[in-house]
């Protein structure tokens, strides 16, 4: 880990998530990033659910901090967050998830915390980065923090060697894509559509172009989220993206009626279906040089493997 006093950007910081995605690229496939909130239906069982999701094929864990005002989330995740808060879930509970995943997978599966900004601000940005790193977490996804407002987080994540995943959207201008790519470490989170989280019948048509544009802006690793919910979606997105992010479809399995064991079974069934999707995406077996399969990649003028992901 880098020294706590290292100033922003002076020292390349390794990326646990980036390494994981690179390893999967060598296997010829995209990563499956699975989201679940901590604390639903309670902290204990949310840890159990995350580990079950990992066992069923999630390559990267995204664990959500429940928040009272989740403006990027649709009804499914809102409901789970409301229940988690009503049950007394605290911000620090995400650290237990990071620890559990790290120990369960011997550090193979990175855990990213997804949090709106105010809970981390209140915890103390540097203190949270310190505690997350100590718990074996890989980094943080910040849906309502743009790099322009992120000086404190950029410094803290550098100091503690954490990934910082910023988002891009179909509305992002080329200048903003560049700025965001430069500030990002781990992967760039490409929102497939203009909207909030939630299962949709199809993945936004602008996702593929956004991934290409984000690569053109210098990104190596770009994962696509919002509205990805089935194995077929994963197979489709996994052809052109470095990772497929799924949230509401997995949370929905836990929100269903029925005994807990049946909900876990359903969660694992959906995860396995998605894991199968990312494996189907580019055909079987490893490919020689990363994303070589798709026509869309021909439009990408920048060789993505030559790009630095550190700012």
């Amino acid at each position: 880990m880098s020294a706590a006093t290292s100033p922003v950007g002076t020292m390349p910081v390794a990326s646990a998530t980036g390494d994981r995605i690179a390893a999967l690229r060598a296997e010829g496939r995209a990563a499956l990033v699975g989201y679940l909130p901590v604390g639903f239906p309670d902290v204990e069982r949310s840890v159990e659910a995350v580990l079950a999701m990992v066992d069923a094929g999630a390559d990267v864990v995204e664990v959500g901090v429940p928040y009272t005002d989740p403006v990027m989330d649709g009804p499914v995740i809102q409901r789970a967050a409301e229940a988690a808060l009503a049950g007394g879930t605290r911000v620090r509970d995400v650290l237990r998830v990071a620890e559990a995943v790290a120990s369960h997978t011997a550090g193979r599966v990175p855990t990213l915390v997804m949090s709106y900004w105010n809970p981390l601000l209140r915890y103390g940005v540097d203190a949270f980065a310190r505690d997350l790193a100590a718990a074996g977490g890989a980094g943080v996804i910040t849906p309502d923090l743009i790099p322009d407002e992120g000086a404190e987080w950029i410094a803290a994540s550098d100091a503690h060697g954490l990934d910082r995943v910023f988002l891009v959207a179909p509305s992002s201008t080329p200048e903003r894509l560049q700025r965001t790519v430069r500030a990002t470490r781990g992967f760039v989170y490409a929102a497939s559509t203009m909207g909030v989280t939630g299962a949709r019948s199809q993945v936004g048509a602008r996702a593929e172009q956004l991934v290409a544009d984000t690569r053109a802006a210098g990104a190596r690793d770009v994962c696509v989220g919002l509205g990805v919910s089935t194995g077929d979606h994963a197979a489709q997105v996994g052809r052109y993206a470095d990772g497929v992010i799924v949230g509401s479809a997995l949370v929905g399995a836990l929100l269903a009626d029925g005994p807990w064991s049946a909900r876990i079974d359903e969660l694992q069934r959906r995860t396995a279906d998605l894991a199968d999707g990312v494996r189907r995406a580019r055909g079987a077996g490893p490919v020689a040089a990363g994303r070589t399969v798709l026509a869309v990649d021909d439009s990408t003028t920048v060789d993505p493997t030559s790009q630095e992901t550190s700012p």
Partner: protein
Amino acid sequence: MPDQPDQPVRDALTETLAHQVLGRLADVQGPYFGEFGGRFVPEALIAALDELETEYRKALGDPAFTAELARLHREYTGRPSPLTEVPRFAEHAGGQRVFLKREDLNHTGSHKINNVLGQALLVKRMGKTRVIAETGAGQHGVATATAAALLDLECVVYMGEEDTRRQALNVARMRLLGAEVVPVQIGSRTLKDAINEALRDWVANVESTHYLLGTVTGPHPFPEMVREFHRIIGEEAREQVLDRVGRLPDALAACVGGGSNALGLFNAFLDDEGVALYGFEAGGEGIDSGRHAARFSGGAPGVLHGARSYLLQDDDGQTLPSHSVSAGLDYPSVGPAHAWLHDLGRAVYEPVTDDEAMEAFRLLCCTEGIIPAIESAHALAGALRVGRRAADDGRTDQVILVNLSGRGDKDVATAATWFGLLDDEAAQAAQGTEGDK
């Protein structure tokens, strides 16, 4: 915004200090007011916020835009709003002279129309066809629905379910004006949740839709832009008081929810050092009760709805529910410019309880024949307090200017229940659907 890739964060402190040295407080521009404000929103909205800022700055410099807005103020809203001296009310304020800036006499019954007309004209310039808005008391929703009707825009208003019951008459009013009113049934079911839902709509529909935010909160450029559209309140009042009294007032009093009417009044006096500025927040059932919306007395700096400001939050950064008898003040955060003025010490913010506000409400009704909005009654209660304090200090020559930001028609049912003015059956009828739920 400056584009310096390796130094992506604007140096807010330097900017503000520069303004303080070189310019007037009244002219400070976003995104930061001191350490407050900013843009804490999803990336998806940044392009729309940039477009809005560009269009707004162009419009302010365009004589055609300012002329059209001035015409609407005059011919549609009925500006300038009068300044009314209220001597019988003032007898209860330590014998000082009290003047009311009569924003209640604007078309649609509150100051909200000033901002709405400005933004609605911008919407036309941007070529968008749909507006969405949040509303608490319903005043901003009614004003937005009104402007949408006038300018042929599709209009959807998000309103907490709890507020749709408290303000059933305004719901009907918005629907009469052709707006769709969506009751928000998640979270605390009040103003903050209506804003969450409006933001979700905006992210999904930003290409066709403008979020016509109703107060001086939210991401840049809203806090600055909404202040600009309301600064006419203070500019008119300043001239009117000078004309009537021959000098500036000693103190201003305004209620502060998000803070648009207060900032609109304060702005013209920010650089007049002799004018004391008082913002009155909803003290609800008292700060100790925990049931209030007093962000300065009971909150701490944090981020909500795109801006850094004072915020009611727990020690985990979760937003705490606010409470007030007045739906329009029932909001857990406050405009970043107020947070800045608070920390600068330029304005003083005090809580006024439900009880105090309702007493002032009744007093203005009985002494002056004016029924104020319960929001504005917080300012009236504050003016009574400021006047009495000055009298206790031996001063009885004070001129106090109160922003009467809205009229109280919408609050008659609440007041009738509060004061027990109706028998049970009539009270139930007056409360609209509330009795049924």
